[in-house]
């Protein structure tokens, strides 16, 4: 039950984009089409889940025993950066089409603050390796859900007559705001499940 509650909380209640403001740059940047959004989501789910595991293990087996917690930020970002590099090499070999489409955004997962944010949240909430991984996975699924919904909305803009003043970022931010207002409605939900 706790596991289910955690996944629901990560995806809906504490949604990274709408409730915690994490990973907004790629959210606004890569959401112009559904294909790209889906590709990016796959990359983010993989990177964020594995990065959560690795950083939690790093915390438990290296930083804590050696009392090096003050180096956490540097250690985490290095682990994440090397991981992204790995995914990039893997994608280039196996999925060249997707690699071309994602272009510059793939290396930018390094600077997707959701990945480091998930790792940091795991530490502040002192989840272990298992729960940390789960939390990272749930957060990534929530982020993907957000970007895929948003890409769907944005695709429809092409057919609409949008005032020049609102075109681009202003409209994107206002629609994100309205979506986040809807997600705010989840915040009372599953209260019993989470206890």
């Amino acid at each position, binding site marked *: 039950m706790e596991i289910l509650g955690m996944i629901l909380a990560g995806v809906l209640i504490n949604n990274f984009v*709408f*409730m915690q403001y994490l990973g907004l740059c790629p959210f606004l940047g890569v959401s112009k089409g559904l294909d790209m959004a889906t590709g990016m989501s796959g990359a983010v789910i993989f990177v964020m889940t594995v990065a959560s595991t690795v950083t939690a293990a790093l915390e438990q087996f290296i930083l804590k025993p050696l009392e090096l917690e*003050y180096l956490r*930020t*540097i250690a985490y970002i290095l682990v994440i950066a090397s991981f992204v590099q790995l995914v990039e090499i893997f994608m280039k070999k196996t999925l060249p089409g997707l690699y071309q489409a994602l272009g510059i955004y793939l290396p930018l997962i390094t600077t997707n603050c959701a990945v480091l944010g998930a790792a940091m949240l795991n530490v502040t909430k002192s989840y272990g390796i298992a729960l940390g991984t789960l939390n990272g996975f749930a957060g990534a699924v929530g982020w993907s859900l957000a970007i895929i919904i948003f890409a769907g909305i944005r695709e429809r803009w092409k057919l609409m007559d949008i005032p020049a*003043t609102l075109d681009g970022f*202003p409209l994107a931010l206002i629609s994100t*705001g309205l979506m986040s207002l809807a997600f705010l409605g989840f915040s009372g939900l599953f209260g019993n499940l989470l206890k």
Partner: protein
Amino acid sequence: MNENKTFLGYDFVKGFIKENPTFALAVGMCPTLAVTTSLVNGFWMGVAVIFVLTFSNVFVSLLRKFIPDEIRIPVFIILIATPVVIVELVMKAYLPAMYDILGIFVPLIVVNCIIIHRAEAFAYRNRVLNSAMDALGSGMAFTLNLMVIGAIREFLGTGQIAFGSAVFPKAPLFEPAAVMLTPPGGFITLGVLMALLNIAVARVSKRKTTQSQSG
């Protein structure tokens, strides 16, 4: 290497308008929205970013001839992570309450797109003094943006604006809308601000074209 020998003053000023981090480049969105629930939060976040940005820009610029092109991003990240750790430790020691409010967004400065953007787009190609001015300009513009957004949200959300012990106005003038302090309020505030800015820019450019036509 293409070294731009522009005026130092221009490198400082361009961060405010032409290359404004929030409104022109739309980078660093996460902290822009996350910490702007009040003016003071925005201010301290901005100060932290100014320090990190100046430190990283100066060192990237100093080392630009030694950094191999292929691994420049990891090198930048290390050069950025160092001042972030300094800020984290200093803030924890001297401003513990603010550190708790800003939370994970202090360590997350390391992945703030503004900093890596300035390193990649400017400091890696320019001289040290120019890079320092560029960092100060962008950093101060970012701080100003955060303070403006923070002030608007704080005013609409609580009815007052507090800076230190000074509170203005003394009593809320209207029923505050608490939604402004929640994530939707942040997104909508920034969206509306950007739209207003678009209107202003359109007006100015229209005036310029009519002037050039008549003149």
